[in-house]
């Protein structure tokens, strides 16, 4: 098969469409209100959907709908971009470092990295993938060899030139990177070769139809000067002095205080009118961990923009005058999981019974997301091409009687797995990081479950690192974990294939295929569908496979959902461009999912 990315005006369709969820993620906690929740109305002013990308191969002629479209409560700026000006952005955390291959990154850190580094591929507004620093890519018939052409005349901040050899040298660094080594393995990448000045050939050990998704994000999709990974000293220095090809160059970095980035005068990209990017002269990132003072900083003019992944902050920002809000709610959703290796969660009647008793609307309210977050029933938001009405219909709605009946059935079962006598209540432990809104949400579940008279509920809370560690469980050499019912966040705008593979693999497989399977639920038939979905780039076919998987999962209920996670980038009036940035071909980009802004095309609207 030969696949080429669309170019401006020609528009060819890239296969691997988009979006969606992956598991994992960051569990609750610092990054957000984990289980956050849903909402009522979110004004969805979609940016004009671009023409669907095409692939030369595939029957995927229909443009996939998108979950990735920004949700904005702000009116579009009255006039277009103006050159110049500065922005200062309050982030919810500091980046541990600015090395895509090495540093653990989440939303705040990606805001910074995206300013320094370009990605080989980026996502369009509809979530499909398009060329960014690369110019095109094609794959052989079984998706094991991918040939990519780079954009010419691109230089790094240090003046060195981007060539195919750069990508090869990056691969050497990737193989030992804390972040990249795992992705190389999971993407099946085994060799990178320069087959021309600007032509790179990736060889995979097996079929991976959505390999482009790996090239569209850190750790292996962001392009850095390989010299920054050359030796230990260079790697250490690169944490604070990264070298990329991106729109901004790091001017100074005072960790935990501010990172000042200035315009890259040699940036390769121009907007549709031929104006060289970026528009802003500089952008400064300030980590401001406290949600309240971050908003106060914006309201008082200490910073000119801020991000938040918390529903309560979105609510407060909406009540603050003089701000533009760029909200987004895609596939990211709060929820949790049962550790199915532990009784009584090893019985589907208990799992489904508890979730049937739960009340998502009340949970959303407790999380401060009323009127902000949308209810969720699966790993994909309703705009995703992988969204399934059938799964939505099958997901339990709040019904105390039906939920109690399921738990009662377990309690009356002489062979009940927890070893207690028939008729005795079950005991469950629910755990979230100790965030006030998460505690409130846990209390909603506690009240409902205990109201049945069938369940004793213990609530616990650990800091985020411990919380995640309990679910990952790798410290003991296994990936089973020590958790019970555990808050978690699910879904993202990335292609779901890779995440679902390890997220639902066999947790007992010694190869570690199920390392990300935090609930430890494994169903051979369901997993077969997930594997099959990585062998094709046909969206409809993949959607059907994910639906089959999802219907089995809803019956087993190893994981559950408590409402979508809305995010926001709030700016001082006049600072816009976050939802209207363009790809090199002039089509609209994905916007600002997870409050990750592309500051290269942010601008101060002219007076």
């Amino acid at each position, binding site marked *: 098969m030969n696949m080429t990315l669309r170019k401006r005006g020609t528009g060819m369709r890239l296969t691997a469409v988009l979006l969606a969820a992956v598991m*994992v993620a960051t569990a609750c906690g*610092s990054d957000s209100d984990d289980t956050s929740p849903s909402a009522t109305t979110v004004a969805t002013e979609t940016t004009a959907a671009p023409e669907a990308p095409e692939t030369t191969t595939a029957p995927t002629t229909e443009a996939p709908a998108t979950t990735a479209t920004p949700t904005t409560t702000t009116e579009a700026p009255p006039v277009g971009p103006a050159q110049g000006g500065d922005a200062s952005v*309050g982030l919810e955390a*500091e980046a*541990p*470092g600015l090395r895509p291959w*090495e*540093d*653990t990154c989440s939303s705040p850190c990606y805001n910074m990295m995206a300013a320094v580094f370009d990605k080989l591929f980026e996502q369009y507004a509809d979530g499909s993938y398009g060329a960014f620093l690369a110019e095109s890519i094609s794959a052989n018939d079984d998706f094991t060899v991918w040939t990519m052409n780079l954009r010419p005349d691109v230089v790094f901040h240090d003046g060195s030139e981007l060539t195919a050899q750069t990508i090869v040298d990056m691969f050497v660094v990737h193989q030992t990177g*804390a*972040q990249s*080594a*795992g*992705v190389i*393995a*999971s993407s099946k990448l085994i060799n990178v070769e320069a087959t021309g000045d600007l032509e790179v050939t990736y060889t995979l050990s097996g079929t991976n139809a959505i390999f482009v998704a790996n090239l569209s994000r850190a750790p292996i999709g962001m392009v850095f000067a390989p010299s920054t990974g050359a030796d230990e000293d260079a*790697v*250490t220095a690169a*944490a*604070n002095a990264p070298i990329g090809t991106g729109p901004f160059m790091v001017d100074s970095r*005072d*960790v*935990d*205080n*501010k990172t000042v980035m200035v315009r890259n005068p040699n940036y390769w990209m121009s907007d549709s009118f031929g104006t060289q990017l970026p528009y802003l002269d500089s952008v400064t990132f*300030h*980590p*401001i*961990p*406290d949600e*309240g*003072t*971050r908003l*106060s*900083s914006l*309201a*008082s*003019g*200490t*910073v000119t923009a801020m991000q938040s992944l918390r529903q309560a902050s979105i609510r407060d920002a909406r009540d603050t005058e003089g701000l533009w809000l760029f909200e987004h709610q895609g596939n990211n959703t709060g929820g949790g999981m049962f550790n199915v290796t532990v009784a009584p969660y090893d019985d589907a009647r208990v799992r489904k019974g508890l979730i049937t008793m739960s009340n998502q609307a009340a949970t959303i309210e407790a999380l401060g997301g009323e009127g902000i977050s949308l209810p969720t029933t699966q790993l994909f938001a309703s705009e995703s091409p992988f969204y399934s009405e059938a799964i939505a219909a099958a997901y339990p709605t709040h019904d105390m009687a039906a939920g109690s009946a399921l738990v009662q059935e377990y309690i009356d079962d002489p062979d009940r797995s927890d070893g207690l006598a028939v008729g005795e209540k079950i005991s469950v432990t629910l755990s979230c990081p100790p965030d006030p809104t998460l505690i409130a949400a846990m209390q909603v579940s506690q009240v409902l479950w205990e109201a049945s008279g069938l369940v004793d509920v213990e609530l616990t809370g*650990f*800091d*985020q*690192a*411990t919380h*995640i*560690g*309990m679910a*990952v469980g*790798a*410290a003991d050499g296994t*990936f089973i974990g020590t958790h019970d019912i555990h808050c978690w966040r699910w879904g993202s705008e990335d292609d779901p294939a890779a995440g679902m593979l*390890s997220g639902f693999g066999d947790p007992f497989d010694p*190869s*570690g*295929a199920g*390392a*990300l399977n935090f609930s430890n639920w494994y169903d051979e038939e369901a997993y077969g569908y997930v594997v099959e979905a990585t062998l094709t780039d046909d969206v409809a076919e993949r959607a059907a496979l994910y639906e089959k998987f999802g219907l089995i999962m809803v019956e087993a209920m190893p994981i559950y959902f408590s409402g979508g996670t809305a995010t926001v980038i709030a700016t001082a009036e006049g600072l816009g461009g976050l939802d209207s940035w363009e790809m090199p071909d002039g089509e609209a980009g994905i916007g600002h999912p997870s409050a990750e802004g592309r500051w290269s095309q942010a601008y101060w609207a002219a007076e």
Partner: protein
Amino acid sequence: MLAARLVRLVATILVVSFVTFMMVNLLPGDPINALVPPEAQNNQEFVEQLREEFGLNDPMMVRYANWLGDAVTGDLGKSVITSQPVAGEIWRRLPITAELALVAIGFSLFIAIPLGTLSAYKQGKRVDQSISAAAQVSLSIPNFVLGLLLIYVFAMRLQWLPATGWTRLTESVSGNIKSVILPALSLALAEVAVYTRVVRSDMISTLQEDYILSARAKGLKDRFILFRHALRPSSLTLITVVGLNVGALIGGTVVIETLFAIPGLGKRLLDAVFQRDFLMIQGITVFVAVVYVTINTLVDIIYMLVDPRIRKKV
């Protein structure tokens, strides 16, 4: 005398470093979880390599001995998370936390000494009662609440001062002054209450001394007597408390540094705990202990300078 103090200082630091090391190792969670993303943790070879690199496979006592051996040469190791040298991080952040603590103490002394003196001078009168009541109120307000209030008034409403952030002295003197005022005031208020009470209490005793009566009998002005003759002998307890507080402030600015997004030692310590960055926790904790013990030794020396009676005893 000095040698004995030094021995005590070293012993204290050794105990603190060992206890900290033990405690950090007892924290739940594996540093590898913070360092390596879950999807990479199934790469056992890679994980093992990292464990070796950070010495996580060695027995705890071996790790402690290795750390101690390096620490005496000034090498406190590297952050597991950022791979930056711990000592470098401490030196980079110390001026910020030290400045914050010193300005906070300066603010609090500036307010507390006159208030405490006035309170003692007007003992039992309405002024004294009002000052005591105000001190009681300020003691009961958590400093982060005061911080939020100050941000609301001076940043949001009046827009005189920045709500968050830090400008280094080397960058801009005026910017630095602006950025230190609100956090320092937030820290200072509770200290004002304590210092005021300490000054008042000692001053009341001093004012009953014979030499004060004699000064009054000579017709010296009250203000002269209070600040020239009574304040110095009334400040011994104050010096002790301030000395104890300097150490406590350096390690205890966690909340205020987080609230105001100040890149000091306290915030770094908090982040390190959440990230299971064990070498960073160890390094900062031991450093704060060293500062604390050293300052208290200095306080003892200042005692001797302030009070000739102590100097004579020594």
